[in-house]
């Protein structure tokens, strides 16, 4: 049940790809602010902003790790995506560790006007690894099809949510735009009928 929830089946959309926007976005923002602070040293509080962005990025990465790990554990061992997913996970763990150290280095130098060399280097390495890892994550979806259509395949039927009418033809209608907002709508009947015949 918890597994289904973390795989986003009630939302009918995987959760991990929703959350990864945030670590990627925030960590890239942090790096960009570092670069801007090198180019325009007279602009105040760029490095402080970079620090905050990094903090949010790390928190978001930790949040995204939970559904990510559930998704990972759901890939069959003989699927070609398993290797990619292992690499994706290892790289992500490295990125979080690197940014953890980076944040710790910066926390004692928040008022410095200039970025310290180790902090900048860690950011460069971190962004590099994050790009590779993000690419692998995209490869998992767009080439290996992980999590695509997964909610259609194995959602357990719940009597309270779906109307099941085995003797009528399924209602042909447009599927709802936001299906999790309209779980009892007529359009779900089609969905339900289709699924139950496939079992």
């Amino acid at each position, binding site marked *: 049940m918890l597994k289904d929830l973390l795989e986003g089946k009630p939302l009918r959309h995987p959760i991990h790809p929703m959350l990864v926007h*945030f670590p990627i976005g925030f960590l890239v*923002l942090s790096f960009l602010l570092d670069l801007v602070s090198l180019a325009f040293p007279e602009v105040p509080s760029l490095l402080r902003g970079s620090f905050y*962005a990094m903090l949010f990025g790390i928190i978001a990465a930790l949040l995204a790790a939970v559904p990510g790990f559930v998704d990972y554990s759901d890939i069959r061992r003989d699927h070609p995506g398993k290797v990619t997913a292992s690499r994706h996970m290892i790289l992500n763990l490295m990125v979080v560790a690197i940014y953890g150290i980076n944040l710790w280095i910066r926390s004692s130098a928040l008022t410095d006007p200039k970025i310290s060399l180790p902090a900048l280097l860690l950011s460069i390495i971190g962004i590099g690894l994050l790009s590779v890892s993000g690419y692998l994550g995209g*490869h998992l979806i*767009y080439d290996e*099809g992980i999590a695509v259509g997964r909610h259609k395949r194995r959602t357990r039927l719940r009597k309270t949510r779906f109307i099941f009418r085995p003797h009528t033809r399924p209602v042909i209608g447009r599927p709802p735009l936001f299906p999790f907002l309209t779980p009892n709508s007529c359009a779900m009947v089609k969905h339900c009928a289709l699924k139950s015949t496939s079992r």
Partner: protein
Amino acid sequence: MKSLLDFLKGKWLGHPLHPVLAHVPMAMWPGALIFDLLSQGQIGGNAMVRLSFYAIVFGLAAALLAAPTGLVDWSGIKKGKPAWKIGLYHMSLNLIATLLFAVNLALRWQTFRDASEVDRMPLLLSAAGTLILFGSAYLGGRMVYQYGISVGRMSKKKWRKLAAAGGANLPPE
């Protein structure tokens, strides 16, 4: 022309380009809302106000880059498919969100250098824009995870070969 379309589809990268670029506004604009709320809660002071401003700028820049790639991806969907309509909604909502954040940015332009907290109006615009963006992003995700848009675009040949080797009844190309 063909090569430009292939570039926008991300063939050179081996990965569709629109989902890559879409990460940035999708993180920056809700991020701006969080920073706005923190600055209203007297956390971070002017650094937070500036951070929010930079986040919106970065988001807008990436959104402008992401728009043509999204348009190309959308133009590849047949008009009768359900994903076509979803794509249309996705695009319209994105346009509204982008406009809202552009107005938002204009409202901040004069004050972000010195203000210690974000005004009410930009904060409301951030909240509205974020809400619309969430709806739009969900639709974008539906296009991928429900309808498989741009899935297998780069690896079609590989999967066809695998399926043919397994004796599958392949549809014509």
